[in-house]
């Protein structure tokens, strides 16, 4: 299942995303949670401490190769997750697409 969770700011989409991710992982599924918000806070809802997130390197800008006309990832998802994801409670893998501009905020 590939599920996008949308909604207005403050609607609670992050609480719902993070909680579902953990519950489905408890059910024995492999779960990849992607924080696609430019003001990311899915980590907190998953129960991953802020210190662990701030130690995470930002995703490299050259992950996409557009030379062939369509955008292709230059690395496999496994490679991206190996270097840039965090494993959270219940075994959820978290990938944060954008980091906040200022460290220590939010």
């Amino acid at each position, binding site marked *: *299942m*590939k*599920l*996008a*969770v*949308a*909604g*207005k*700011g*403050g*609607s*609670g*989409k*992050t*609480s*719902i*995303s*993070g*909680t*579902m*991710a*953990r*519950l*489905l*992982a408890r*059910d024995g*599924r*492999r*779960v*990849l*949670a*992607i*924080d*696609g*918000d*430019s003001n990311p806070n*899915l980590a*907190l*809802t*998953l*129960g991953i401490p*802020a210190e662990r997130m701030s130690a995470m390197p930002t*995703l490299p800008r050259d*992950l*996409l190769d*557009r030379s062939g006309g369509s*955008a*292709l*990832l230059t690395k*496999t*998802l496994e490679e*991206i997750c190996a270097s840039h994801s965090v494993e959270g*409670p219940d075994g959820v893998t978290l*990938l944060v*697409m*954008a980091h906040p501009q200022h460290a220590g905020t939010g």
Partner: protein
Amino acid sequence: MHATVRSVIETAPAEDVCILDTEASPEHLSRGTARYADAMIAVVEPYFKSLETGRRMAGLARDLGLERVALVANKIRDERDLAAVEEFAAQHELELAGVVPFDEQLPAAERAGAAPLDFAPDSPAMEAIAALAQNLARSNGRA
């Protein structure tokens, strides 16, 4: 970032679960970021602006060709709130995939810096989200 997210979702194995917490703006939909998702839920609160945003996002997700597009009601305090969302969903022919009650434990968890599931595992909101997760995962079971 949008194109990268789109490619990551496309690459994620279909037999696993991939949950994308999107940006609050509908840009992720107009730019096709969620194109390779097979379902989208729009989380709405029981007031007009929130419902309208959800309806717009649902429309964009349908335009992208997602298999399942639904609303999820959140912060529902009473029968009147529920009726408002149900009425809106019926009027716009949108599925209502789940109803999560207003739960004081969620803001309390945030204040405590804890995951809601750790802070209040047996709260009504957590139970409702568990039911939602089962609903979405079950209908997505592939042979």
